[in-house]
């Protein structure tokens, strides 16, 4: 009997082609879409409050995905994951901002929802694999362990948001479009009469109705949005800020301070609720500490090693020395100072095309 594989479908080109390719490879394919939490909409005339739709699973997305499933002749289900998504992704997002971080909820979603909740669900349905439309690849190392590799289309690579996976997840994960470029995937879709447009990109804040996270935080985590002082490195108060979540590291404009040279956001200091600013020359960060570390291999390296470190979804990886620390975190020392190193984002470690793992950036230092 054919192996059963559950495909997370979005109605867009990537997951639709993924499902079609698996079907052609002889798998028994089951399409699913997760219904995720979204902030409640305004009350309707009748007084009932209806949930706004998460932008990953709008009525249109469900309609499109169902249409693709119908076309491919595979079953399709919408699975409720609102509670898990709220608890494991949205609440962490809010807590991250409250702690002065700039979190990336996509990593939490892949770890806890797609390759947590949904993978367990797939197993309970007797599926041998869980497939997604991510641009990433699963490889095998010399010792037989699973590797997470960048997608063949370097410009579309999504291994960064999957850097939270481990051996148990990769053993069952399939990324059928990871070996293709985006134009190739569009051509595969067109040849099969499937949708050729992309759905939501990994990086969008799907659960925020209008995509405005500052408004969202002001409404849902008012305690995280408190005015406070703007300080320079020496601790002198230069002005007042409107609430730390309104600023990101490296930001220049909008500070409302007259100074002899342009000032940039250097740090969000949650403990003092202070925005620390300084000249462009102080933006570079030579070191960061990240953790807790997820090592894809399941084994933390025994000693410090050289590799490349990527500090944001689309950032260029930079050469660095990585030193694992006894507490499960690690210290990253860049060869050259990097701009835009932001606590809350992940530091993903790469050896060429192979992603070795990642950890959340906890703090940074200039040198």
């Amino acid at each position, binding site marked *: 009997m054919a192996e*059963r594989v559950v495909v997370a479908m979005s109605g867009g080109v990537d997951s639709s082609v993924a499902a079609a390719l698996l079907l052609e490879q002889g798998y028994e394919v*089951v399409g699913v879409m997760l219904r995720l939490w979204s902030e409640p909409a305004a009350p309707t005339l*009748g*007084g009932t409050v209806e949930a706004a739709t998460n932008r990953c699973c709008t009525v249109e997305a469900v309609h499109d995905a169902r249409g693709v499933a119908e076309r491919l002749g595979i*079953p399709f*289900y*919408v*699975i*409720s994951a*609102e509670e898990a998504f709220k608890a494991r992704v949205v609440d962490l997002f809010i807590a991250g901002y409250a702690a002065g971080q700039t979190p990336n909820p996509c990593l939490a979603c892949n770890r806890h929802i797609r390759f947590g909740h949904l993978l*367990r*669900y797939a*197993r*309970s*349905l*007797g599926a041998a694999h869980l497939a997604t439309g991510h641009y990433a690849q699963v490889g095998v190392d010399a010792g037989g362990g699973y590797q997470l590799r960048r997608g063949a289309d370097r410009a579309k690579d999504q291994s960064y948001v999957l850097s939270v996976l481990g051996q148990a997840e990769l053993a069952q994960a399939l990324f059928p479009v990871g070996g293709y470029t985006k134009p190739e995937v569009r051509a595969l879709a067109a040849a099969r009469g499937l949708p050729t447009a992309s759905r939501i990109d990994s990086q969008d804040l799907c659960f925020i109705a209008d995509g405005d996270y500052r408004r969202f935080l002001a409404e849902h985590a008012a305690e995280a949005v408190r005015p406070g002082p703007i300080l320079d490195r020496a601790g002198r108060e230069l002005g007042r800020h409107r609430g730390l979540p309104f600023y990101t590291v490296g930001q220049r404009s909008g500070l409302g301070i007259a100074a002899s040279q342009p000032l940039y956001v250097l740090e969000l200091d949650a403990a003092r609720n202070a925005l620390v600013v300084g000249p462009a020359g102080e933006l570079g960060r030579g070191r960061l500490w990240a953790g807790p570390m997820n090592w894809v291999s399941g084994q933390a390296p025994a000693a410090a090693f050289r590799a490349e470190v990527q500090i944001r979804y689309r950032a260029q990886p930079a050469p660095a020395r990585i030193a694992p620390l006894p507490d499960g975190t690690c210290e990253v020392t860049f060869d050259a100072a990097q701009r835009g190193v932001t606590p809350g984002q992940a530091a993903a470690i790469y050896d060429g095309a192979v992603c070795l793992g990642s950890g959340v950036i906890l703090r940074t230092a200039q040198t």
Partner: protein
Amino acid sequence: MIYLDHSATTPVDPRVVEAMSPYWTEVFGNPSSIYGQGRRAAAALEEARGRTAAILGCQPAEIVFTSCGTESDNLALRGVALAAAQKGRRHLITTPIEHHAVLHTLADLAEHFDFEVTIVPVDHTGLVDPAAIEAAIRPDTALVSVMYANNEVGTIEPIAEIGAIARRRGVPFHTDAVQAGGILPLDVQALNVDLLALSAHKFYGPKGVGLLYVRKGTRLLPTQTGGSQERGRRAGTENVPYIVGLATALELAQGEREAEAARLLALRERLVAGILAAIPDVELTGHPTRRMPGHASFLVHGADAQSLLIALDLAGIAASSGSACAVGTPTASAVLTGMGYDATVALGALRLTLGRASSEADVETVLARLPGIVAAVRGNR
């Protein structure tokens, strides 16, 4: 595929399809037209009304054809409530286990039309106490509405007793009999009802047609106005082929009812006994004996209904958690919480409803596959 969701809907009986066939292209007239085509359509309509009335034991003029069970319930509740309000009666009585067609309509009357609704509790098996209904009746009570048989747990309510009380107290009595059509006796005199709603697709008729029985003398305002069809109680050109289909399906189903009920009861007993014996931590919901013959409903503790239904579908078994009208929302059934079940426990509801296509082999297949499916789904938690 093994279809075990006959409470959601049924396939149309081929004999019904056959009876409907002349009314698409041959006898297509508007029953209100004066020429031959119209007269023939009107004759078919009235003939169907007569056959339907004979089954219900009422006058043909007491039958109002509608588009579905939900519309029938709406017409009954809104029509009677708004007429009674003219006389200053604004109190309505119902139970917590009614279909949304009733509960949401009464909620709307309360929220937007200034009515007051008393919800009389049910016991742990879903049974309504007629004495509790009587105790809730007030001088300004406009209507009592209690379903004939519950869709989610199969419990059959003491309709005739409640009807006798309502009549003695001079209060109109409505029953949503949508689940009972083709399964239970439908004589409106024996049932002591003033209003009774049916839907054809529950008894092997087409979707999109239903009826409301309205006892002569029951004051009811129309909710849909326009032409004078259905004696001014439901405006709109009559759906002749569907109405013929409803009448034929009702005749066939009520005619074969007793033999079919006995067959289904035996199958259900085997199904229920088999499931309770083979799977730990499963309980039957609803009344153990006062329930529809083909209806089996359970709480599968430690499993969530959504996973269970998907796994069953992938195993070729069509089932549901309760009301097909409430699918997609993983919230606990108000019927089960109304019966006193905890909301978290109620998420494991599983409903298997047998019907004409069901065989012993189907039951044995389910008994063979379900334990493994439940174990896998429970392992996911």
